[in-house]
């Protein structure tokens, strides 16, 4: 069997080099046959001329049989494919307008899809950059180191696990003191993620103990940016917040913990020994590795039984434990999965519209080429060969379009990421990798073949004999080709409507969101974060002295109005305390109401322009040694004093033991959004920094309002900070406007993208309907001429043509409406204060689309009315 195949292949290869000889011989062989047959016919008494014809009739289609015989000797399918390809290139080059429109359509459709797919690929499909990432799970709740250690000891489901707490340390060895991101970890943390260090080693369990050596593992970026990539870095000392740490390892480039950027890793026991033994302080995020073969459900059961034991053992702290495990990947992707899938669906619609346009173009062109097809068929081209030729052409277009799309996508993906949607920022692997290339190639081929096949089929079904006889005048679209184009245009309009409705809903939601009052005036406010080092600022009076000195210096700057607060709105930090209210029946421990807790200094409410609704704001007299005062927000009043005057009422932190040091409410201010404009406001309490008893709250955020944009402001502010204390790092320098804009990044991302897709869809479908109508008009020039000649008014012609387009638009809109109604419900969670079936949006979109469709019909229709009847009648 094999030797036979080998022999055959060898003969074919030989034939490759003996083309001419083979051709000559075949020619001769067939001529010989025909000659003998003709002789025989004549011998049978058939007259001379007829004998030749008869011989040829008996032989069949000579060209075709010769070609088929010839193909026996060649790698036939490959070679004729090559011929088809060359022919396709030739014809495409001959029709630059058609080729350009088709390529542009496809490049836009495929490019948009590729850009989105590359993001989806990076975020949803690519494995996380850890060892065996599918075995990693996260605990949804934070936990304490003590509990993590107990779980590590008791678990049967996990092979490894570890926790991390994110903290800031001061790095003062550079040109400016700055804060770096530290990960306070246990020895299990880096081990669990399983990425080996680039240099040195990771923390060992022996080092991860109270009183252990001061050693750190550093990130690649820290190594490069702060230590100049020193190859001899191992064993060198880095000073962080007045302590010296020896570098024992460098992690590879691109390694980050799952949810944050970290510059250095240090044992919690070493860096923050006071916090490590507290079981009740749940401040570590923990990640765990499933043992091989253990399912998530089994692990969940395991952790639940451990929860039960811990709850029994430590009822005070752990009585209400309920730990949930989440696969790490799901944990990181969170809500962006929904948004990405909606966008992917939307961009898929764009591709469908582009494909429909593409198919429409092909149909129109095949009609224009009917004469050529007919002649080719008459000369012996088989139906299969004709279809294949058409398919090769459309696949070629699609692949070139795909390549152009890839370029668009490369540019588009960069643009997407520059919009900085928060949820995507954690992912570093977004790029055009082999998955993406495969995806592009796949959709290009599918587009080319899938959407080329219907036009090719309809072209091949022509009755060639009839067409040939009737000549050019019959070269119109057959009913099937025309119907196909109508269906395509209707589908395009329907798809465009769905996209426009989706985009319209997002835009409406976004504008609602933007118009939400944040509770303060964000214009011209600069913010920066400061952290006082514990070594020199452990006592409140010392902290107060620094704060007061700094504020007075800042307020002496011309035009600047400065105040400070612990946590700025839309910033990264948030602090809650539970309270008890004087004169209210006491509630069980652990169920006291929670309020957001903020400390301020200076006239914060004036600086931020937060209106005081009742009572007063703070004054310089509200300071240490004076009666304790607090200002609350409106939500606080609604929640705790719905029918009473809150002014003069007193409350205290629930943690304080009696006798209470009551704080008196002296004012009520307007609610301020903290988490985001789409989140509700929590009850909040403002109290003076100088009256605080919590010395661990050593951080503060400056808020400085200026009359307008002030160049050099940031440098001046830093100078003032360092003139008070040279060693204080300044971080998170951002204008209030930028902070708010960042909080909307995800919504803006969704809206811009879907809006872009919808615009693309609108343009593509407008081009589609224009193309159909323009074509139909050109086909009907003769008919229109007749109508005009027998007395039809131009108005009637206009109505005739526009009416046809309007009918298609109407069907498209009706179909699109029902599809949109079903589909927009899927995006309900992406919308803010807009229902997915918002009637205004639906109506506006339908009107817009109808208007665009009518204009697209009107232009060719107007041209139709300008037809000169005499010219039209002579047409062809």
């Amino acid at each position, binding site marked *: 069997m094999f030797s036979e195949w080998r*022999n055959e292949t060898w003969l074919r290869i030989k034939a490759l080099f003996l083309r001419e000889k083979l051709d000559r011989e075949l020619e001769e062989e067939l001529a010989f046959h025909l000659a003998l*047959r003709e002789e025989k016919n004549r011998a049978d008494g058939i007259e001379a001329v007829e004998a030749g014809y008869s011989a040829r009739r008996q032989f069949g289609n000579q060209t075709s*049989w010769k070609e088929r015989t010839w193909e026996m000797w060649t790698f036939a399918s490959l070679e004729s494919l090559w011929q088809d390809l060359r022919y396709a290139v030739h014809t495409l080059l001959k029709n630059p307008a058609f080729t350009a429109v088709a390529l542009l359509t496809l490049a836009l459709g495929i490019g948009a899809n590729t850009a989105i797919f590359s993001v989806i690929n990076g975020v949803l499909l690519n494995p996380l950059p850890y060892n065996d990432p599918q075995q990693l799970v996260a605990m949804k709740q934070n936990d304490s180191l003590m509990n993590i250690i107990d779980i590590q000891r008791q678990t049967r489901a996990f092979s490894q696990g570890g926790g991390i707490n994110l903290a800031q340390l001061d790095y003062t060895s550079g040109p400016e003191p700055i804060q770096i991101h530290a990960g306070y970890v246990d020895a299990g943390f880096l081990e669990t993620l399983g990425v080996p260090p680039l240099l040195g080693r990771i923390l060992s369990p022996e080092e991860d103990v109270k009183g252990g050596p001061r050693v750190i593992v550093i990130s690649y970026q820290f190594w490069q940016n702060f230590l100049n990539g020193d190859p001899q870095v191992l064993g060198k000392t880095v000073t962080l917040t007045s302590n010296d740490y020896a570098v024992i390892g460098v992690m590879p480039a691109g390694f980050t913990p799952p949810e944050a950027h970290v510059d250095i890793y240090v044992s919690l026991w070493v860096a923050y020994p006071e916090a490590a033994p507290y079981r009740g302080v749940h401040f570590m995020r923990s990640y765990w590795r499933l043992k091989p073969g253990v399912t998530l459900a089994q692990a969940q059961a395991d952790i639940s039984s451990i929860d039960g034991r811990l709850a029994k053992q430590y009822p005070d702290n752990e009585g209400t434990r309920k730990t949930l495990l989440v696969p790490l990947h799901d944990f990181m992707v969170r809500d962006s999965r929904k948004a990405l899938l909606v966008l992917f669906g939307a961009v898929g619609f764009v591709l469908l519209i582009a494909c429909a346009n593409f198919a429409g173009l092909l149909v129109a062109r095949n009609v224009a080429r009917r004469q050529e097809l007919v002649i080719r068929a008459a000369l012996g081209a088989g139906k299969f060969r004709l279809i294949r030729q058409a398919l090769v052409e459309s696949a070629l277009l699609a692949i070139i379009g795909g390549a152009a799309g890839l370029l668009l996508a490369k540019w588009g993906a960069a643009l997407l990421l520059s919009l900085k949607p928060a949820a995507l920022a954690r992912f570093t692997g977004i790029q055009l990798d082999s998955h993406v290339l495969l995806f592009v190639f796949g959709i290009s081929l599918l587009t080319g073949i899938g959407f080329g096949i219907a036009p090719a089929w309809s072209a091949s079904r022509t009755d060639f004999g009839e067409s040939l006889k009737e000549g050019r005048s019959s070269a119109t679209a057959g009913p099937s080709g025309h119907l196909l184009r109508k269906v395509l245009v209707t589908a395009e309009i329907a798809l465009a409507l769905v996209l426009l409705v989706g985009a319209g809903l997002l835009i409406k939601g976004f504008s609602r969101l933007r118009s939400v009052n944040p509770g303060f005036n964000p214009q011209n406010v600069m913010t920066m974060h400061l952290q006082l080092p514990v070594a020199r600022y452990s006592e409140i009076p010392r902290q107060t002295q620094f704060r007061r000195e700094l504020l007075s210096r800042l307020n002496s700057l011309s035009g600047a109005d400065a105040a400070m607060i612990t946590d700025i709105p839309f910033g990264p930090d948030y602090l809650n305390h539970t309270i008890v209210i004087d004169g209210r029946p006491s509630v069980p421990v652990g169920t006291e109401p929670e309020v957001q807790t903020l400390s301020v200094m200076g006239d914060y409410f004036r600086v931020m322009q937060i209106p005081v609704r009742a009572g007063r704001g703070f004054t310089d007299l509200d300071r240490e040694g004076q009666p304790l005062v607090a200002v609350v927000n409106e939500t606080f009043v609604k929640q705790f004093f719905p029918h009473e005057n809150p002014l003069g009422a007193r409350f205290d932190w629930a943690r304080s033991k009696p006798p209470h040091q009551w704080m008196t409410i002296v004012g009520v201010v307007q609610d301020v959004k903290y988490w985001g404009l789409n989140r509700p406001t929590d009850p909040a309490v403002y109290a003076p920094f100088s009256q605080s008893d919590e010395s661990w709250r050593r951080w503060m955020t400056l808020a400085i309002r200026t009359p307008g944009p002030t160049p050099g402001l940031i440098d001046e502010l830093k100078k003032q900070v360092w003139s008070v204390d040279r060693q204080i790092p300044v971080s998170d320098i951002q204008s209030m406007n930028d902070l708010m804009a960042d909080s909307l990044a995800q919504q803006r991302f969704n809206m811009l993208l879907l809006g872009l897709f919808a615009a693309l869809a609108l343009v593509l479908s407008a081009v589609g309907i224009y193309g159909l109508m323009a074509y139909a008009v050109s086909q009907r020039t003769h008919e229109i001429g007749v109508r005009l000649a027998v007395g039809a008014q131009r108005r009637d012609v206009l109505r005739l043509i526009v009416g046809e387009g309007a009918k298609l638009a109407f069907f498209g809109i009706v179909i699109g409406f029902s599809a949109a109604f079903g589909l927009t419900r899927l995006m309900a969670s992406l919308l803010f204060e807009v229902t997915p079936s918002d009637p205004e949006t639906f109506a506006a979109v339908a009107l817009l689309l109808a208007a665009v469709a009518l204009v697209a019909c009107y232009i060719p229709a107007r041209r139709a009315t300008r037809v000169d009847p005499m010219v039209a009648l002579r047409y062809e």
Partner: protein
Amino acid sequence: MKEKRDSPGDLLQGTLDLLILKALARGAMHGYGVAEWIHQTSEDVLKVDEGALYPALHRLELRGLLSSEWGASDNNRRAKFYSLTAAGRKQLTQETEFWRRMSCAIARILQTA
């Protein structure tokens, strides 16, 4: 004119191959000769484009069942003569046996019906 069957697919490819092998069993022959032989022996029952013969001849040659040689025809014209190879003979025996059994089986089935 009788209704003409215009596609070679109407005649099973295998059948055509077998007929060619059978024709050549009697000795070397050119394509026209094979066509004539098929016309005569089948009493024109098998109607087929004569052109269809040539892809089949060349295919069989490629498969090593036939060999070919240019020689002079009866009327002294240059013609391509095909003859069976050993492999061709073997193939013919096998195919003939297969068809014999097949037609017996079909005949039996038709009789019992």
